[in-house]
């Protein structure tokens, strides 16, 4: 198999529920080693799409390949190539953490002789080593989530599908999750992550895929990688004049008022930002702050979805 082949290749995927069509001929491919944020409103078809890729649902038509394996023809072989973390973790509460990991490892065909080492490695990676003899039912939500991720990673799948992985986690656990995503990406794992919390996805996504009403609206690299970052300018006083002022400055684009500040894209460096600030002050604006806007992905998502709505109208 050529390593240049995409990690996930989906072609003309159609999935029907009895009362409605959930996926309308969706086609895309996901590059190896990328982290793709799968975003869209509730009911857009994200979970159905992930379940079709994971061969948990059989589509009406279309083709799905993961790591070169035809998931419709060889679903069990395909399961060796993926890890799929559903929003509901599906853990056996009566087992211990060690038993749970052993069960997952053997279920993915890991040789019994290697099982112990594999389980210890993944437990260490997910900070579960101290909990090996704890009963799963007694774990906190964050610990359960780490165990669920450990189970999906235990066989070192090249492709990882995550459906709302941060749902219900506290801020610290979310931060750890983001760190884990970056680590997995550095290890060459391809991630396809569905989430509503776009600010979080923005921390580690390389690509974004927007799905709406079962149709793929857009797939593109996330702009914070190399593109102009978004800045947030806070001004003490009225904001109506601010977009005009900042867009006159070279390198500034797409300025708009949002949540008591003006958000705009700016491709300058630190020196450029200093010059921009000076220009704003000299224009008579009472500047009270300039920060990088974190919700890049959300901006892009909203921009694309709103554009789609306008087209629909």
């Amino acid at each position: 198999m050529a390593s240049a082949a995409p990690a996930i290749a989906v072609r003309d995927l159609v999935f029907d529920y009895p009362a409605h069509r959930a996926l309308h001929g969706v086609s895309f491919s996901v590059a190896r080693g990328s982290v793709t944020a799968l975003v869209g409103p509730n009911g857009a078809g994200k979970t159905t799409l992930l379940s079709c890729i994971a061969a948990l649902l059989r589509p009406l038509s279309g083709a799905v390949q993961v790591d070169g394996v035809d998931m419709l023809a060889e679903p069990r072989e395909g399961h060796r190539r993926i890890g799929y973390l559903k929003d509901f973790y599906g853990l056996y509460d009566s087992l211990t953490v060690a038993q749970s990991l052993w069960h997952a490892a053997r279920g993915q065909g890991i040789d019994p002789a290697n099982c112990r080492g594999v389980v210890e490695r993944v437990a260490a990676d997910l900070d579960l080593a101290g909990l090996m003899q704890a009963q799963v039912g007694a774990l906190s939500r964050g610990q359960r989530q780490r165990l669920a991720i450990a189970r999906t990673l235990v066989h070192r799948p090249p492709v990882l599908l995550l459906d709302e992985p941060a749902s219900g986690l506290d801020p610290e656990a979310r931060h750890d999750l983001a760190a884990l995503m970056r680590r997995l990406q550095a290890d060459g794992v391809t991630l396809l992550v569905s989430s509503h919390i776009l600010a979080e996805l923005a921390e580690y996504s390389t690509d974004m895929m927007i799905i709406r009403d079962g149709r793929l609206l857009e797939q593109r690299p996330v702009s914070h990688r190399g593109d102009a970052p978004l800045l947030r300018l806070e001004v003490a006083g009225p904001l109506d004049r601010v977009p005009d002022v900042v867009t006159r400055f070279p390198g500034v684009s797409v300025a708009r008022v949002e949540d008591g500040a003006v958000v705009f894209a700016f491709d300058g460096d630190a020196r450029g930002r200093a010059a921009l600030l000076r220009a704003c002050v000299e224009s008579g604006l009472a500047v009270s702050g300039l920060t990088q806007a974190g919700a890049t992905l959300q901006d892009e998502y909203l921009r694309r979805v709103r554009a789609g709505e306008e087209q629909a109208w």
Partner: protein
Amino acid sequence: MNPELQRYLWLELTPHRLVAAPVILAGIFTLVWLGSNGDALDHMGTVAYWVVIAVGVLWGARATSEAVTSEVLEGTWDQQRLSSLSPWSMTWAKLAGAPAFTWYVCAPCLALVAIGGATRMAPADAAAHALLLGLVILFAQAMGLLASLHLASREAPLARRSALGLHVVGLVTAVPPLLYSVNAYHQGWGGPVVWFGSEWHPGAFVFLSVGAFAAWTVVGCLRLMGAELQLRNTPLAWTGFVVFCMAYAAGWAWHDGRAPATVIEINGVEVVDASLLCAHGVALALGYGMLFLERKDPVSLRRMLADLGRGSVREALEGLPLWTLTLPLAGAVTAALIVDGSPAATLGASSLVFFARDAGIVMFLNLGRRRARADAAALLYLVLLYGLVPAILAAATGVSMAGWLFPDVAGGVLPGMSSGAVQAVAVWLLVAARWTRAWAGPPAAG
């Protein structure tokens, strides 16, 4: 070790259970020993027999019947489906693992059944009784797993209340061989069984029969497990099972002029060799059973038609509703009845077209927009069509509705088929119209 089996062993064979079970059994059998007057082993064997039934059949079938449904309800089933275990590994692990504790209890009891029985019969016979009982338990437990897999594969979301009492399926199917088994343990094996004109030792025949049906049950589990794991199933297994059941039933009514015949009287004419008729009846009965049990969701049908449209015959066959496969089998037997000049030919042909009509009614209701209770509604309409309506019309007109509303037994093949065929065509035209209107095109966007 199979990881799924290992998981069950962790959960089922806890240290507490491993210690408590032998202690309780020892207490029970000590009490029996002390209360016996010289024939203690025989009494212990009898008590052991009932312990095996209670634990192996009642508890064991319950354990297997929850093997899949409990996982669906607790949200762990999708993780199992994402493993790379084969359907066979998953099936046998669940079959052996879910009731592992019941076998831990039953194994010494089965030994006691053999030892106790040996005090009043040949040791080989006593051992055969224990083996037969063990096989019946296996059959009941396999039926429990089959029911569990079937319920999990239904289109409607699984509700906890619908999974309750599922083990009754295992219990009910185990009742006939259990009744024979209990009676034979105390009264002896009984007279020979005549099947396809051959005499069989009754114990051996029941053992082979239960073994064969248990094996078919495991095949059914394997098939449903494969479907759960998104693997394709050819319709060969179901076809094989129907043919097996047809042959099994035919064997009882086979008459080659030597052994006493099982005579069936139809319209005053005695059918001495009713083997074909029995095979026909079994095929249709299984067809009706599958018609109600199988998924009839429009999406599966649309997928099958799409496969057919693409010329993917194999894929289309894999999606073919299994009840349709009984039609050609029953049709072949009907043709044999006609060629044979059997007095049962009219009944065979007539019941075939009425089955086609009934299948159309079931499908028509299942393709409606409100499909939640379609099968129950179809059952009600069939009861009305076969019971109430003919009775009212017969009472009002004094004319039998045989051949008009239910299968005819006399009057010739073509006249017997005509009314049912017209009704079947009419119903299927309605089905086609409903399909075209509601389901043939892509559904609305969600």
